[in-house]
């Protein structure tokens, strides 16, 4: 079995045994979206769809960050990370497999909640398609950067705030492009540039970020 599939299966199996790791970010997503709807008097009107798009993106971003903040933490504690590195297999491929599994475990359930959130915020139906077209590559980039942040702070106790400080600035380009594409499609303006941009960033992140993550995993065992 290839390194990708080994890492993928293992991460899925562990995630399946810890369902709260996926459910907590989902609950967070729903709670934050409802809090925003509650505080806007009379709820969102259909004319505020541009705002609703931005809110959905930011809430999804924060939930994804929560979900991936604990990546590799357990492996680091119990020594499986050392085993993984000692294996004579490509760590790069293994990281890709593990991140792909994390995306299925935590981002896909969150994406499944997006229609509910869009309904709560009274989002114009005409942008739902564009929302998914941008959120899918967007959530992949969020997951990758989240895992990067988690590996940067491996072994640093109570890393929540530090993780946010490290990762949130890196999310900005994708966030701007994604929200921009949706808002432009809502206003029936050309959105091709932003759409191409977000897919380009996604492809580049899938290709290059696992190198950085693998290097950080290696160095976490050196000392």
């Amino acid at each position, binding site marked *: 079995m290839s390194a990708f599939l080994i890492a993928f299966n293992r991460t899925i199996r562990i995630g399946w045994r810890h369902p709260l790791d996926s459910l907590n970010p989902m609950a967070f997503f729903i709670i934050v979206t409802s809090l925003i709807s509650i505080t806007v008097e009379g709820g969102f009107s259909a004319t505020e769809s541009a705002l609703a798009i931005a809110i959905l993106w930011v809430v999804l971003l924060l939930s994804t960050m929560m979900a991936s903040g604990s990546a590799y933490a357990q492996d680091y504690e119990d020594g499986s990370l050392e085993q993984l590195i000692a294996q004579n297999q490509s760590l790069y491929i293994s990281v890709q497999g593990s991140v792909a599994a994390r995306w299925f475990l935590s981002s896909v359930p969150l994406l499944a909640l997006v229609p509910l959130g869009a309904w709560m915020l009274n989002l114009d139906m005409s942008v739902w398609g564009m929302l998914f077209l941008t959120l899918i590559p967007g959530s992949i980039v969020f997951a990758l950067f989240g895992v*990067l942040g988690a590996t*940067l*702070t491996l*072994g*640093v106790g109570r*890393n929540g705030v*530090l993780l946010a*400080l*490290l990762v*949130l*600035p*890196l999310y*900005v*380009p994708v966030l*701007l492009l994604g929200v921009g594409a949706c808002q432009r499609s809502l206003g029936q303006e050309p959105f091709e*540039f932003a759409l191409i941009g977000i897919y380009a960033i996604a492809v580049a992140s899938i290709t290059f*970020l696992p190198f*950085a993550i693998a*290097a*950080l995993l290696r*160095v*976490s065992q*050196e*000392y």
Partner: protein
Amino acid sequence: MNWFTRTFHKMGSPPFFYRGAKNWVKWLYVIGLVSLLVGTVWGLGFTPADRLQGDSFRIIYLHVPTAHLSQLIYIAIAVAGFVYLVWRMKMADVFIVSAVWLGAWLTAFALFSGIVWGIPTWGTGWVWDARTTSVLVQLFLFLGLIALRTAIPNSQRGALAVAILAIVGVINIPIIKYSVDWFTTLHQPASIQIGNPISIDVSMLWPLLVNTIGLYSLAAGVILYYMRIHVLRRERGSDWVRDVLSN
């Protein structure tokens, strides 16, 4: 080995760097302070007022050099991160640790002076367009680097983590650079671009160049100064530090 590689290897040696940088710091301080004084007095007192912006344009003499230098420091940190990643050169990490605070302060000052300039000319201090936003993001990236470096006490691991974060964060720089052209924005495109005629009058340009040279020299001096301190701290206990301090 040619001159360049020889110097490159020598600069990687802490004692050589410590001794060699001593005079550089002094001269960079002198050049920096004198040019900044000359450029600022010239710019504030002896250039004609702008036809449209009046006297408020004069903040260009501080805003443009700081904004430009803060970006340059970020790129330099990323390059040093790459050098650290590939060659594990200790001096690269010393550079990052010494430059990151200065970069954060310069970015903050560029934002502040931009707000001050924006109020009379744009009619608003802040717009959430891509340009201002990405400079703000650059400030956050600097703060993230500082926080990460302090959070990991293990020096070598912290250095590697910071190097990787700096390289990943550098994707932000092209976005800052080209956001002015990608999106419609209030911020004007750069007046001085390679390959294009300069769209600023010569009488206004000279003080800007003098101030830029001044700020760059001063920043280089400050960074070298802190690098010398960090080198001493890290190499404490080695023979050459004992020699240096006992003299």
